[in-house]
């Protein structure tokens, strides 16, 4: 079984990898990351404008809607390199919202919103609920039609970068069936959004109270495609979280190695001690293998069957790899590792985000077991 796994890497992926690598390294050194942690918005609007100018928001959007016309495979290297530098900003939620529209939006919605997204307006998704089920079809929020309008109720959590977004696409139950609905953020009542305290301080995440929110009836996405759309978003989110986990794991290993090569204890560089060296190698092995899974998931994304297996494996392997690498990074920095000043905590906190959203390793593996045997 599984003899013929594929891993291809396009010219476009290679170009984007190189550009993103240089861009993110230049724009997001750690002192900048730390400064933006203190900032309410969480990113530098000037850098965001540069990313828009590079066309990144339209990478996976067809040209007819103002995009570049590539695919999620080409988004992966960009997200990976952003996370390698712990860069903030609404790039990922906006990309995912565009994917939701492409998979399940009406023609009118696509024509109206996608060009604006490509031109730089942010959007986000509201899918997770306080019941904490990773299954996106478990929805308790509701939409009830009343006088040509939809009255929403319920609560969403982990609405990423909602403060920056023009549109929030939320999952709701309508007439007993899952549906997706576009909310203009400007129409939200005062106090509907509350910023959540999340471990990864480079993120901006919000809780959204839907009670009292009304949207026009044409805010519904195509209800005949809700389940495919939710499945697509689930896998696209997992793919990008895998890219983020790999990017952060790469830096985390390098950061640890740097310390092991310079810090001395008992008269020796601590990297010469095998009790530190060997687990660091284990972290490297886990990261490298996860990265191979990531690019396998990127190049097979959207394929029936194989695509889902690849994404779930990438998510399982990459989030485990980052959490392990960062956990050991803290430990191997000793007393310094216990301080806020040490960057190991930044990676460990990023790992919590990548691991616990959209299904951790054991969850993905249970899904894979169903798919594989």
């Amino acid at each position, binding site marked *: 079984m599984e003899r013929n796994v594929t891993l291809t890497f396009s010219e476009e992926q290679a170009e984007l990898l190189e550009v993103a690598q240089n861009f993110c390294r230049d724009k997001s050194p750690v002192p900048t990351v730390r400064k933006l942690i203190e900032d309410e918005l969480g990113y530098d609007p000037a850098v965001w404008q540069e990313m828009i100018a590079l066309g990144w928001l339209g990478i996976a959007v067809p040209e007819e809607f103002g995009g570049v016309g590539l695919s999620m495979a080409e988004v992966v290297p960009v997200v990976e390199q952003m996370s390698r530098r712990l860069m903030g900003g609404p790039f990922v939620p906006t990309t995912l919202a565009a994917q939701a529209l492409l998979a399940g939006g009406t023609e009118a919605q696509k024509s109206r919103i996608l060009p604006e997204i490509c031109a730089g307006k942010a959007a986000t998704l509201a899918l997770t609920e306080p019941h904490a089920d990773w299954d996106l079809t478990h929805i308790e929020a509701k939409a009830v039609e009343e006088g040509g309008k939809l009255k929403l109720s319920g609560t969403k959590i982990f609405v990423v970068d909602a403060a920056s977004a023009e549109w929030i696409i939320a999952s709701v139950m309508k007439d007993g069936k899952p549906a997706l609905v576009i909310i203009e953020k400007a129409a939200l009542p005062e106090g509907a959004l509350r910023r959540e305290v999340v471990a990864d301080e480079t993120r901006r995440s919000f809780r959204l109270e839907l009670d009292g929110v009304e949207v026009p009836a044409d805010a519904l996405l195509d209800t005949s495609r809700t389940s495919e759309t939710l499945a697509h978003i689930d896998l696209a989110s997992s793919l990008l979280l895998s890219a983020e986990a790999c990017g952060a794991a790469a830096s985390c290993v390098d950061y640890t190695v740097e310390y092991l090569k310079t810090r001395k204890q008992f008269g020796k560089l601590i990297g010469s001690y095998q009790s530190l060296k060997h687990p660091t190698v284990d972290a490297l092995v886990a990261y*490298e*293998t996860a990265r191979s*899974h990531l690019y396998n998931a990127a190049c097979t994304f959207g394929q029936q069957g194989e695509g889902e297996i690849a994404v779930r494996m990438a998510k399982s392997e990459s989030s485990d790899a980052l959490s392990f690498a960062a956990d050991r990074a803290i430990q191997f920095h000793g007393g310094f590792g216990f301080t806020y000043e040490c960057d190991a905590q930044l990676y460990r906190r990023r790992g919590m985000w990548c691991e616990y959203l959209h299904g951790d390793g054991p969850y993905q593996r249970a899904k894979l077991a169903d798919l594989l045997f």
Partner: protein
Amino acid sequence: MSDVSQKELDEFRAGARAWFAENVPADPDFMLPLTFMEVGTQEQFDFLRDWQHKCYEAGYLGAAWPKEYGGGGLAQAFQDVATQEMHRAGGPIMLNAIGINWAGPLILDMGSEEQRKAYIKGILSAEDIWCQGFSEPDHGSDLGNAQTRAVRDGDDYVVNGSKIWTTQGNYAKYMILLARTDPDAPRKYDGLSFFLAPMTVPGVETVPIKKLTGEYGFTQTFFTDARIPATSLIGGEGKGWAVAMRTLEYERGARGGQAGGYVTVYPDVGEVVELAKRALRNGHPACEDPIIRDKLVKLLATYRGLQLNGKRSRIAPLVQDKPMSLPLMSKLIATEFYREINQLAMAMQGPRGAYYVGEPEAYDEGIWQRSYLNAFSGTIGGGTSQIQHNIIGEHVLGLPKS
């Protein structure tokens, strides 16, 4: 090479397929070894020697080695096809592993005309079994520290010392031998020389080693004033380390040039999945147990990761940060994976996990238990997993030496 047409290859494949379908022997009434390192009985040895001889005579082993020395003189692509068809037909392993994978490529690469004429045909036909004398009892992973002495005396070298883990040492006619010719060399590596040493001269004695599986397959080899001809030197006196390193590259496939065939057969991961469905663990099929499911998927991901690492290592932009990372870690991942998957296969079997080869009630004749114990040959041989960690840490991450 470049002017091999697809048509020629297809015809060759059809011929090979027909031949293997006709000639792959039925399973004998004794258990065949899974690898060349486990040939422990005369009947196993005779069976496998006959099979290799037959494959060679049919032109499906050494097909790409030069004709003048006994090879088939064809392009490598033909041998690759033959090996694929051999695998497809489920043929037994090639016996003379050290010969076809190490000694043969080395002799073709660096040997004299006389050495090529003398040794290549016998390697392919399995007439002359070769063994390898690198490791020593006191220097397992530290190859450069080999202490077996070879002292020049007229037209001979006189060898004293001992080599261990000599696969098929008791059957071998020749040994590729790493020995110390200059104990006073400033660098320990410069004192080593490499020989194509005859095992049939007086003063060479092999003692079989019983392995943890209860089988044989390795020997310890003792040299007591054994005289080997100076003409058996290869690469020049004092150049043994470079020759040994080059030889290891044939093994890793970095240089190519092996005769073809395969010398190990590992159960496919699909067979482990299949076992999970039928093995009863605590009264239920193991595949229903959530912990077994989790562990099995984790290992399937590792297995797939190994294949993907191989593919990614050929995509330059995706390996630019640490180019040596993937090649240097594959041995570690593969051997630890193989140990762990066999361990998990045992865990699927409930109380039957405690059976062993010979018990009729054991799943698959106890092959999982034996494979698990044998898997340590991978995690220990060729540099232990712990040494692999040092190598990766030092050569890829640039960590200071331990």
